[in-house]
């Protein structure tokens, strides 16, 4: 009974990760790929580790699994945020159907400072983007 439950948790996690992988290949621009690669692995690893903890049913194993889940839950959004910020700063183009971009022109490319909307624009605006 517990085995069935643990294996179905594992299967759910694996399916989620496979779907995310398809998304990472299919989605049109980098930011949407980050949407895929940040959310699904955190929940997927969570489900897999829960399944493993149920399967082994031992305090040392389940505490280890809990530590892994906590660690992934903290680091995966931070990693996504850091990568997305760096990519935007490096000028990676947005998808051509993106409706609006309120972050545009707010960066100061020299000092890496970021203003808020309504403040004076940065000295050098973002270069025009190649079509994706």
């Amino acid at each position, binding site marked *: 009974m517990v085995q069935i439950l643990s294996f179905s948790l594992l299967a759910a996690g694996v399916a989620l*990760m496979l779907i995310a992988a398809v998304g990472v290949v299919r989605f049109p621009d980098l930011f949407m790929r980050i949407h895929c690669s940040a959310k699904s692995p955190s929940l997927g690893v969570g489900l897999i580790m829960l399944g493993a903890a149920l399967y082994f049913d031992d305090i040392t194993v389940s505490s280890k699994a809990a530590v892994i889940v906590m660690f992934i839950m903290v680091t995966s959004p931070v990693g996504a945020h*850091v990568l997305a910020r760096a990519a935007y*700063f490096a000028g990676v183009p947005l998808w051509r159907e993106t409706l609006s971009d309120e972050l545009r022109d707010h960066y100061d490319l020299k000092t890496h400072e970021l203003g808020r909307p309504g403040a004076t624009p940065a000295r050098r605006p973002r270069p025009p983007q190649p079509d994706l």
Partner: protein
Amino acid sequence: MFGTALLGMLGLAIMLGFVRLARGPSLPDRAVALDFIASLVVGFTGVFAVVVDAPVFLDLGLVLALVGFLGTVAFARYIEKGGPPWYKS
């Protein structure tokens, strides 16, 4: 048997990650693909530990999660602060 099928599915997912790694038009795309592959491998260790019935592999997952995160942060730092401009107008 069922566990082996799960491992195969995860392997397929990792291969798709490699497709993005090879195709991704710029360095930031490749960094995202690497970050994604790292978290897939953490999941892989979890499933593998259950399939071979050896909980030691969870330690491997823990270390991989740590190293993968550090790699991601280092890549992002490099993209933002150094290197050539990745997109020129």
